[in-house]
């Protein structure tokens, strides 16, 4: 298993992870996706993303339950108590991460048109109007 799953715990992250064949954050330390001595989630998440993509894995992001407008308007440097929203911001700010991520909403995989309608696109694309 080298894919990882993201999303809200209260929206059923564990079950979502099982459905897409990925691991979720409570399994990542044991899988070696981040070091046990990380200082905070910012460092742990970056390690997990990098190690997943280096191993050829993909990211499955369940947007169910996330207020996307609120998430995207939040402080991208602050993750505490808004972990999933911050993770979404980090992914759309990083081209390699975004290109390796599959987004889902209410059990359905989203295509690029649906993502644009939700204002989910690479920040660089948004800036150039692509």
């Amino acid at each position, binding site marked *: 298993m080298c894919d990882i799953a993201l999303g809200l715990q209260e929206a059923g992250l564990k079950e979502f992870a099982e459905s897409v064949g990925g691991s979720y954050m409570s399994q990542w330390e044991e899988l070696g996706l981040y070091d046990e001595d990380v200082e905070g989630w*910012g460092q742990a998440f970056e390690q997990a993303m990098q190690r997943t993509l280096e191993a050829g894995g993909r990211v499955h992001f369940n947007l169910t339950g996330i207020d996307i407008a609120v998430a995207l308007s939040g402080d991208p440097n602050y993750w505490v108590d808004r972990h999933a929203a911050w993770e979404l911001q980090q992914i759309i700010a990083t081209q390699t991460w975004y290109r390796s991520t599959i987004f889902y909403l209410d059990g359905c995989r989203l295509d690029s048109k649906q993502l644009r309608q939700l204002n989910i696109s690479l920040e660089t694309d948004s800036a150039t109007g692509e």
Partner: protein
Amino acid sequence: MKHGEFKVAKQIGAKGYFGRVRLEVDQVTENGNVVVEFDDRQAARWQTGARFGIDYVLDHVSKRAIFPNGIRVFVGAIEGHDVDTDNTVIAYVAANALLSALGVEPRKRPDFDELNGSFVFPK
């Protein structure tokens, strides 16, 4: 029955501190003892920290004034995060949740030093 809730959500540099505890207090038990119980599903993790925080408060309030006939603390929910929560954070949060429920000022109270990111439990 009294209810108490407390939450910490703080990011200091690269470190995160997050935890929320909800609990209920009955100031009478059948045999006058101190009883601490946890919800099996909603308060399954970080019980060690929560128990320490609760015991710390009970050590620093007047038993005769506050719970002369015993006390039952039921921790209904402990919320946290895999990296930004640990037993130390939850000890501080649970202590403050209990103080909130009791509505008393203890002789000593735990402190969160936000400059250094350290938690202090004075003896």
